[in-house]
């Protein structure tokens, strides 16, 4: 008897869940825009309303789903725009996958927000950090509760932008700025895949909506027979997921992204943002599994990434880079699981890894502090010799392997120097050539003009004299 009103309420809760962090974001940004500085307590209060409120709503929905209350699987919140058959429906989705990942993610964001209150106390960019954190939460909620790929793209891009701006958080140093740009370039390059997939699906199939999978009960992008564009879309989706999840050969940005504040590194690159690639592929699993070669490619990429991360992580000299490569390894394994069709395992792996890695990264600064404290008490440095002699490092004794690990597999050099550097070099040469030619032409014309003007001036002068 109660199920119908509850279902009606649930339909409203999903848009509200996304709207709360957005409202908090706007409320944090507006006062500084008009020159009214607010206290840290005010900003944190808004974040609590936005993120904790969204977390509670997500948990309520999860409980409703678990207890068997009938909740609508898709919620249509209207139409944004439409031209002919091209319609943008504002559609949210509710399923086990989205609720599990979404409620867990929002909980982690809420915990990171609570942690950061003291960690960033009196930091110059306190308000900026929290504004970007709630923007990230809004993007994440949108990705988790999107009812179509179009909606997912909006959240995906918000996550990318907030992530970039948080990497550049400590903006006094040039390195965070460069690394933020590098992360953004990788994101955007791979987002091309997601945009193309959406366009292909719209043109080929008429929509990009998620529907309920009869087997698993999750909302997935359905596979439709005989659509050539489907293959292209599936390939493009895998490409998009590779960039977001730092898969080989795009893994170089992830350790560099650790330049941001520790709480944001923990939830972005240890826990949530980096898992959005596998999440996307779980949403599109039918499409990916429909092409066996694509699924096999995904497994190969995942395993290669895992191997690469494990190898390179061993020789890192700072704790954040080690943890970043640890994340790369685990996400590679998760990708392989998705490729093998082990979807539930992949989801459990995502949640387990996210929780564990967040704790590790949040603990990292105090761990260093504790170690320094210990060394002060001992009066000497704690030796690494025991670590290096362990079995895990013995195979690195081969010089070629060690060099490979130190050079990060040569992937950064391959992408940055050989590909991007060569392209930029060619473009700059063309640009210089264009500037020289244009200047030469203009100067040649100008050299003639003053003489003519002088002659005209002479003529006028002569006329006056006469």
């Amino acid at each position, binding site marked *: 008897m109660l199920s119908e009103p509850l279902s009606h309420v649930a339909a409203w809760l999903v848009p509200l869940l996304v709207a709360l962090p957005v409202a908090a974001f706007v409320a944090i940004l507006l006062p500084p825009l008009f020159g009214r500085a607010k206290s840290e307590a005010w900003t944190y209060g808004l974040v609590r309303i936005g993120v904790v409120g969204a977390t509670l709503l997500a948990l309520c929905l999860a409980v409703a789903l678990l207890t068997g209350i009938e909740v609508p699987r898709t919620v249509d919140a209207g139409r*944004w725009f439409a031209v002919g058959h091209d319609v943008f429906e504002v559609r949210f989705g509710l399923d086990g996958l989205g609720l599990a990942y979404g409620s867990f993610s929002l909980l982690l964001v809420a915990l990171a927000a609570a942690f950061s209150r003291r960690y960033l106390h009196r930091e110059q960019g306190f308000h900026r950090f929290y504004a970007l954190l709630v923007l990230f939460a809004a993007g994440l909620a949108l990705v988790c509760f999107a009812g179509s790929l179009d909606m997912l793209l*909006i959240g995906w891009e918000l996550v990318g932008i907030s992530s970039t701006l948080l990497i550049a958080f400590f903006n006094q140093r040039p390195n965070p700025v460069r690394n933020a740009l590098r992360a953004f370039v990788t994101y955007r390059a791979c987002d091309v895949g997601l945009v193309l997939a959406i366009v292909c699906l719209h043109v080929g199939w008429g929509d990009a909506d998620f529907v309920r999978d009869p087997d698993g009960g999750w909302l997935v992008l359905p596979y439709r027979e005989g659509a050539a564009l489907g293959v292209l879309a599936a390939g493009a989706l895998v490409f998009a997921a590779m960039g977001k999840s730092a898969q080989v050969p795009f893994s170089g940005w992830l350790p560099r992204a650790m330049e941001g504040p520790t709480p944001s590194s923990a939830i972005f690159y240890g826990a949530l943002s980096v898992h959005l690639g596998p999440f996307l592929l779980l949403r599109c699993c039918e499409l990916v599994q429909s092409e066996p070669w694509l699924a096999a490619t995904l497994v190969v990429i995942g395993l290669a990434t895992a191997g690469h991360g494990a190898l390179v992580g061993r020789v890192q000299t700072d704790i954040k880079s080690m943890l970043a490569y640890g994340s790369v390894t685990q996400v590679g394994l998760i990708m392989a699981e998705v490729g093998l069709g082990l979807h539930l395992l992949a989801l459990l792996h995502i949640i387990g890894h996210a929780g564990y890695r967040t704790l590790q990264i949040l603990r990292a600064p105090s761990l260093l502090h504790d170690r320094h404290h210990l060394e002060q008490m001992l009066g000497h440095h704690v030796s690494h010799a025991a670590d290096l002699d362990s079995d895990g490092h013995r195979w690195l004794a081969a010089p070629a392997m060690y060099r490979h690990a130190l050079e990060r597999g040569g992937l950064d050099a391959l992408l940055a120097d050989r590909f991007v550097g060569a392209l*930029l070099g060619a473009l700059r040469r063309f640009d210089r050539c264009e500037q020289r030619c244009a200047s030469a032409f203009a100067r040649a014309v100008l050299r003639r003009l003053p003489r003519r003007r002088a002659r005209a001036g002479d003529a006028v002068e002569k006329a006056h004299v006469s």
Partner: protein
Amino acid sequence: MYPDLMLTAGIACAMSGALLSVLAPDRVVARGAATAAVALATLVVGAGLLLRLPERSSLALVPELPWLSSRVVAFAALASGVVALALSPVLRMSRYDFAVLCVLVATAAAVPFAASAWLVCLLPLVGFTAVTASLAGRDEGREAAVLLVGCMGLVTVLGALGVALGVAGVPMGLWLLTLVAAPPLHSWYLRLAQALPLNLFAGVVILQASVLESAVIAVPEASQATLSWLLAAAALANSLLAVAQREARRAAACIVASQLAVAAFAEFSAGDAAVVGGTFMLLTVVTASTGFLLLLGALEARRGETLGLVRPHGCYASWPRLANAFLVLGLVSAGLPLTLGYVASDLVLRGAFAGAALPTVLVVVSGALNAMTMMKMYLYLFQGAAGRPQPSDLRPRELTVAFGLMLAAFAFAFGLLPN
């Protein structure tokens, strides 16, 4: 009848702004007079638009699209003209510059109503002649003036030849490619961006956008498919050049040129959604791209130098509001979700892909590259170690204008949408 009369009155009003600013005793009065005249013109044209809007309220009705889009673009051109004038730095612009800006905006408002290919080709020359005069008066602008005269001469000859030959494809195509500054015919545009005050350059962008709105009638249907390929390639080439630039002005000019090429590509596409998307792309250029150009100008005025993109400049600490406004407008222009730019690119891609898949892929890549350059500009101009803290963040007038532009970019995305 009334809307057309009001439109004519509006354009005349904007032109009178040019006269008033030339006759003004000093620059401050000239700017005030020009701003007031163009603002009045905007109100008149806006009122004319509102008179008929309830009858033809949707840009989705494609048969009605030329009627509505031409008026909306004219209105947006005038409104952006007001913004450009209001944000003009008095110390760096003469009375004649304000007059040139008025002429550019008035021409931009008039071009969408050109009924024949002749007018579409010749009307922009009024604005470009005024710009040439302004360039010729500056020492650093003489090279740019030569290039502009050369290119506009070429454009005129091509346009006249094309129209005389019965709207022939090749000359009209070259005319259009020169107008959107497609490489290698882009030298004039980059030099213009370097030599002119950015407020005047924004006026040139507004004029280009309004010419593109009506360029469909000047290009024969038979050559539109080839042209859409060339325009997509031009968009990509300009985006690539933008990535490679080491100077903020040149990078911004390349981004805008790329967006204009995308808008023109959409205008020539077969899909209805793409045509509507093209109009929205032009509106994005006229509002958001013009906005970030103006804010770049405001930043340069504060720094007192032309800014490069080789090292971070660290302006965030001194001017956080300026930085945030620049970021938002830049991202809107690059297609930030929930804004006008996003709607535009979404419609363009959906509409054009069915008819021209590969050119659409080029356009997608070009959009991604533009976003990268935009973020690079933000990061390198505003982040980094700050020098001496400087007090003058956006003044109330500038803040109002920047906030208004941002609001417009969001409001357009939800208020004027096809539905």
